[in-house]
């Protein structure tokens, strides 16, 4: 009946359900952050028009691409730095 039981050969169904659920949540949060940030970067706040201007649409596309690229790079860098830190002084990243 355990939950995130690492190192065990067979994940239970509850674990499989939790894993899928968690995956969905991670993706949904990333999506939500991207929408917030790219809206802020690209959309004119006066709302004089109800349609996306051409420039805004292009900006959104590029913002989305850059957001994914940045997300990936930051994720890679964090992993490397954390490994380096752990190899070094045994410290960690986050709340202590």
């Amino acid at each position, binding site marked *: 009946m355990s939950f995130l039981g690492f190192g065990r050969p067979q994940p239970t*169904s509850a674990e*499989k*359900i939790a894993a*899928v*659920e968690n995956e*969905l*949540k991670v*993706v*949904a949060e990333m*999506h*939500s952050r*991207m*929408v*917030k940030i*790219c*809206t802020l970067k690209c*959309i004119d*706040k*006066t*709302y*004089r*028009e*109800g*349609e*996306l201007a051409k420039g*805004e*649409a292009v900006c*959104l*596309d590029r913002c*989305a*691409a850059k957001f*994914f690229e940045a997300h*990936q790079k930051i994720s890679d860098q964090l992993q490397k730095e954390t490994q380096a830190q752990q190899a070094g002084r045994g410290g960690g990243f986050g709340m202590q």
Partner: protein
Amino acid sequence: MDGGLTQAESRELDARIQKRQVKEFMNVFGNLVDNCFTSCVDDFTSKALSGRENGCLSRCVLKSMTTQTRLGERFGELNAAMTAEMQQKMR
């Protein structure tokens, strides 16, 4: 993906997914209200929305929906590409 869930389990999973979608939609809606209200409503000399504010809100909703749809499409494409790349690496 579901490798061997019983019928009851996969129903449970569906229920959770549906619950999450409801939550997601509520978030999107809440953010939309926040954003459009903040951008469009600034006159507190009366307690009813003015014509200008109503127009602004309505255009803001339209634009936000298009934005949401467009970013949703981009997100889907980019996420698929990223997933494919990661699966490539894992082999």
